């Protein structure tokens, strides 16, 4: 037998199967999907539960999914906290550091943990302090800024 012809035949057959497999449509109906998942080693019911929990957690921790009403309410409450405009830069910085530490201990890591306060204006510092005071009050974290 011509060995080269035999080799071509193997290649032709393998290629025909490759082409055939590329033509199979993906599983589409609920029944096909379920069957395919089970054959591939998945538990469809467990996947449903995992998917529900995963997306629920993702949405719950994502600020993009907070409604504009909730944001408006939070802004109103933050504005109820007085800004310490009369405080010196040193007082503002110390108070921010103190509140950040209190929030961290209380398990409410403030988002400004890595910000360089020295680069911010006094006005920015006053706003940050206002938001931290709001966060601490809302989270029930005890703090005392009487020492500035």
């Amino acid at each position: 037998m011509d060995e080269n012809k035999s080799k071509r035949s193997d290649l032709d057959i393998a290629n025909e199967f490759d082409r055939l497999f590329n033509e199979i449509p993906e599983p589409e109906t609920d029944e096909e999907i379920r069957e395919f998942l089970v054959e591939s080693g998945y538990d469809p019911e467990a996947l449903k539960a995992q998917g529900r929990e995963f997306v629920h957690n993702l949405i719950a921790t994502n600020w993009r999914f907070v409604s504009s009403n909730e944001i408006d309410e939070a802004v109103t409450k933050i504005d109820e906290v007085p800004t310490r405009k009369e405080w010196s830069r040193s007082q503002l910085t110390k108070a921010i550091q103190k509140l950040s530490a209190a929030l961290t201990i209380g398990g409410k890591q403030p988002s400004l943990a890595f910000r360089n306060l020295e680069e911010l204006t006094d006005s920015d510092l006053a706003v940050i302090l206002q938001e931290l005071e709001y966060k601490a009050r809302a989270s029930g974290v005890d703090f005392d800024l009487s020492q500035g």
Partner: protein
Amino acid sequence: MDEKKRQLLNDFPWEETYPKLVAFAEWVIQGKNWSSGVLPKGQTAETIVQDVITKTLTGKRNWDPERGDLLDWLKWVIKSDISHLAESAANKRDVRLDSLSNDPAVDQIEYKAGRESRVRPQDASPEEAMIAVETEDELMASARLKIDSLLEACSGKPELEEIVYAISDGKCSAKPQDLSKYLGRPIKNINQRLRALRRRASKIRIEAENGRE
């Protein structure tokens, strides 16, 4: 993110969709070649799906509700991400020459290119001629392995055997519709068998490749 889009994402039936997305990702994964039989970077169908959902919900990948259905969008991103993963250096590093492309037409081009370089030895350096012969030998070995895997996958399963032999014996062309007519079975049933055959054969081939390393 605007209110309408947020609402659509919030109201989307994620619980029902998640298994569909995992099935789709698994389907695409099974149709690609992976070095050592696994995805690079420890990825799985589930991690890819979760990553795509996260990117969509956080706006990292921007779904435009005006331009199409969310399920179609998610599938498109999943397919795109898996393709990138298959083409990534991490996957290519260990993939054999014979499995670089899943497209048989590309295999043919590579095969022909190998033959052409071989029939013009005066143009090829000894090293190039040697590589061409090795490439052709690898293609042949790969084809034999694919056929052996198919035969093993269908062994003892008459519903798969009749498909494999119909094609390998040249009794029927390699198209699901033609197989449906030839075997007198509904196309859905043929597609279902073909999925099982592809998955089994692929598993056997990967195990054989890993075993010979």
